[in-house]
């Protein structure tokens, strides 16, 4: 358990660095540290499925960020040193809300079952009958593609929508540019 807390501390520090550092490449690296810490955490919690996806996605994300930063600019111009007067009230409001929310959440979370001791009602059936009913040895695959196939269909639809959205936006921009240059 202690290694999880160490990882959490590392992630918090890296996330703060990613927000506050002026060098954008360093910020992307700090973001990568957060992501890979999540991957290590998944391995420690014995979820290799998620760890694989997390490692691959994180690598792709950092590569994309690095590619964009190397081709554009390296400094974050939106970060200002010093305190701005108009930001004082929002900051105080955020902190106050955060403290209130933490207190309420702390009270609510004590009612939940403790870590590593979940209340399993449906999941018990899935784990016990997964191999017998579907013949697949990986219980995660059993759940996402058989017992909960609808969820996966929805997930696939979300991905499809995302791809269609990105393609629509980017294709339009490309065409306009092309027309402006007088190409066919």
């Amino acid at each position, binding site marked *: 358990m202690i290694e999880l807390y160490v990882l959490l501390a590392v992630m918090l520090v890296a996330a703060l660095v990613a927000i506050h550092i002026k060098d954008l490449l360093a910020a992307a690296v700090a973001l990568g540290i957060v992501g890979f810490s999540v991957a290590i955490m998944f391995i420690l919690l014995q979820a290799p499925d998620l760890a694989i996806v997390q490692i691959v996605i994180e690598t*792709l994300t950092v590569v994309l960020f690095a590619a964009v930063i190397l081709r554009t600019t390296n400094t974050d111009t939106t970060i200002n040193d010093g305190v701005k007067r108009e930001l004082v009230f929002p900051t105080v409001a955020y902190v106050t809300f955060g403290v209130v929310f933490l207190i309420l959440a702390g009270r609510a979370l004590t009612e939940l079952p403790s870590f590593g001791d979940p209340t399993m009602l449906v999941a018990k059936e899935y784990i016990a009958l997964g191999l017998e009913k579907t*013949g697949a040895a990986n219980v995660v695959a059993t759940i996402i593609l058989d017992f909960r196939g*609808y969820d996966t269909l929805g997930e696939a639809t979300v991905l499809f929508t995302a791809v269609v959205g990105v393609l629509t936006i980017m294709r339009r921009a490309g065409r306009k540019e092309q027309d402006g240059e007088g190409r066919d």
Partner: protein
Amino acid sequence: MRGMSSIVQQIARLLAGVLFLFGTYIVLHGHLTPGGGFAGGVLIAASFILVSLAFGSVEQTERNLYTLSSVVESVGGVLFVGLALAAYVGGTFFFQNASIYGVGSPLHLISGGIILPANIAIGIKVGAGLFAIFLALGASRFVMKD
């Protein structure tokens, strides 16, 4: 898009095939070991992205690949929905598993009924979709740079 240095190109030459093979393995063994269509599909897309980042490409090829990958992505989606609908042929309800495919013998590659073909469909869909997104972003940069 221009290519990168020859060091990157050599490493990409060595790595891309292995990456593609590993992605395919993760898709095909999704019902036996950790992984599945999503993870394997991302790995397959990563192998294509690696090649096109390292070696660069000409604009026309990029446009053709972009159309091709968005078509393949849709084919993967249709395949997945088709698998779910195929249960109606067997006379049962949407997404029913073992009615027409048969469960197969557990712990073998051909097992798990609908799960293996569904993983393959998702792998195709995710791989082609991510590569299409990458090409859309990369191609737009190409156009903007001119």
